């Protein structure tokens, strides 16, 4: 799954349609993500950013189209969903840490149970991660003792512990107090620098402009416009993109 054949994209999303009942959320999304790319998805609430990410992770079944990850069509019939998820990490807006486990156990659960990693090695690697991201002393705490920013960082580490090829980040700072956002963004920045392929849905435009290799503007269920951050933020082609960005600027968020 991690062979780097040159030119083969990490993710291919082809004509993706997804509806919830009568509500059509994704109306034909096409997207290619190369290895090591950092794609930032921006768009209004309800534009389908979260849904798109959840489809890539097979948390939502799709209605039409296909998704290919590392050369394997994950939306085909009879696919082993659990196996695919091992290679894709996802972090949610609401962290979703397991409240009945310590931080350390949160991180080591999946490697031990899914990969069969021996407990001692899983713990050592977990502590390494905690150390790297500055939370070593919280290893034996329960999630409710941590701040929101700390919990989200743990959530990212939990996903990283499975050594995924791709990370999906779904508005991971939207639920945080402003002063806690920075610590989380730092973590993500580090991952980007280290070469992780990432698909990030975010409202943090400044951050997006900083680390994205490409920005995609999701509007009304399709990718209305995509391109390098300088172009999208500096000189967008489409009227809708302009309107959206204007609203963001007016709200003081950029």
């Amino acid at each position, binding site marked *: 799954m991690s062979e780097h054949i040159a030119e083969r994209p990490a993710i291919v999303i082809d004509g993706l349609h997804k509806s919830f009942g009568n509500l059509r959320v994704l109306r034909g999304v096409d997207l290619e993500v190369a290895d090591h790319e950092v794609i930032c998805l921006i768009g209004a609430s309800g534009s389908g950013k979260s849904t798109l990410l959840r489809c890539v992770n097979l948390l939502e079944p799709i209605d039409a189209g296909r998704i290919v990850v590392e050369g394997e069509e994950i939306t085909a019939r009879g696919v082993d969903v659990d196996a695919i998820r091992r290679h*894709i990490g996802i972090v949610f807006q609401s962290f979703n840490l397991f409240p009945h486990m310590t931080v350390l156990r949160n991180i080591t659960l999946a490697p031990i149970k899914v990969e069969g990693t021996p407990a001692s090695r899983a713990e050592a690697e977990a502590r390494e991660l905690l150390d790297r991201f500055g939370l070593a002393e919280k290893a034996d705490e329960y999630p409710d003792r941590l701040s929101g920013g700390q919990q989200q960082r743990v959530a990212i580490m939990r996903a990283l512990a499975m050594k995924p090829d791709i990370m999906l980040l779904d508005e991971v700072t939207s639920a945080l107090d402003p002063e806690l956002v920075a610590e989380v963004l730092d973590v993500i920045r580090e991952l980007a620098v280290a070469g992780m392929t990432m698909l990030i849905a975010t409202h943090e435009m400044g951050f997006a402009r900083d680390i994205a290799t490409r920005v995609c503007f999701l509007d009304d269920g399709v990718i209305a416009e995509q391109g390098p951050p300088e172009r999208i933020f500096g000189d967008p082609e489409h009227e809708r993109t302009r309107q959206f960005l204007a609203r963001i600027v007016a709200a003081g968020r950029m």
Partner: protein
Amino acid sequence: MKVAGGVPGLGSSRGVPGVDPEQPLPPPGNRRSRILSVGEPGARSVWVAVASTLVFFGVAAVLIVRSPGWASIKATFFDREVFADSLPKIVGQFSTNVFIFLVAEAFVLIVALVLAVLRSLSGPVFAPLRLLAIGYTDLFRGIPTILVISLLGFGMPALQLQGFPKSEIFWAIVALVLVYSAYVAEVYRAGIESVHPSQTAAARSLGLSRLQSMRHVVLPQAVRRVIPPLLNDFIGLQKDSALVAFLGVIEGLQQANIISQATFDFTPYVSLAIVYLVITIPQTRFVDWLVERDRRQRQGGTQL
């Protein structure tokens, strides 16, 4: 000057008992001594509560003791000699009940969990299992327990099938397990459904299988939440263990019956009640303690 707030001890639904919302709150720290000192508005309602409770129960006690039938009630229900005589015998036979409900509860906890998990399986391929679980629950919650016990306890031996034990205790345990699993399965199910789906989403996203998610993430949280109702059903089971008397086994209640009918006295039932209280009250306090200790783990982790 109104005295607002609820009466302490009788359930206050309006914030801090004894505190008048029209008055500014006293500064925190040392509030306790303030409330107990007469003269403070909060203190007054506490004293009223204490006094009226004492008066109420005092009056009730006087009314009961002065009633014309009291002497005969006292002799029939609170006969010291019969009590002393019956208590050891009842405690002795109660060991049968203890055996029955301990064994039954062990199986109930497992069978009910299986039922609840079966019922929670989503997807069309699992429909037959789900229907089985639903049908089972409907059946055994609908039939009176005594009927299940007598059908199995008298009916199965009557069929004279080879290889099936005839022991009444065996069939009583089977009946109780069948019936109580249906109730407890619903309790488990409520617990499972109370765990936010985002927990399952997070677990599955890490690559954990459906079963692994259930076992490591959902069930530990679900079960912790439903410990009080689980204890409720367990206490019900402890009392229903007396139904085995219907099959002739001399357990605690039947022993009380025997002594009662031999002496024409109801005091043995008071002895039995005391036995039950002695075993159930510690259980309740234990669960209270468990829930309190666990409360901190329920917070955090999933802020929506």
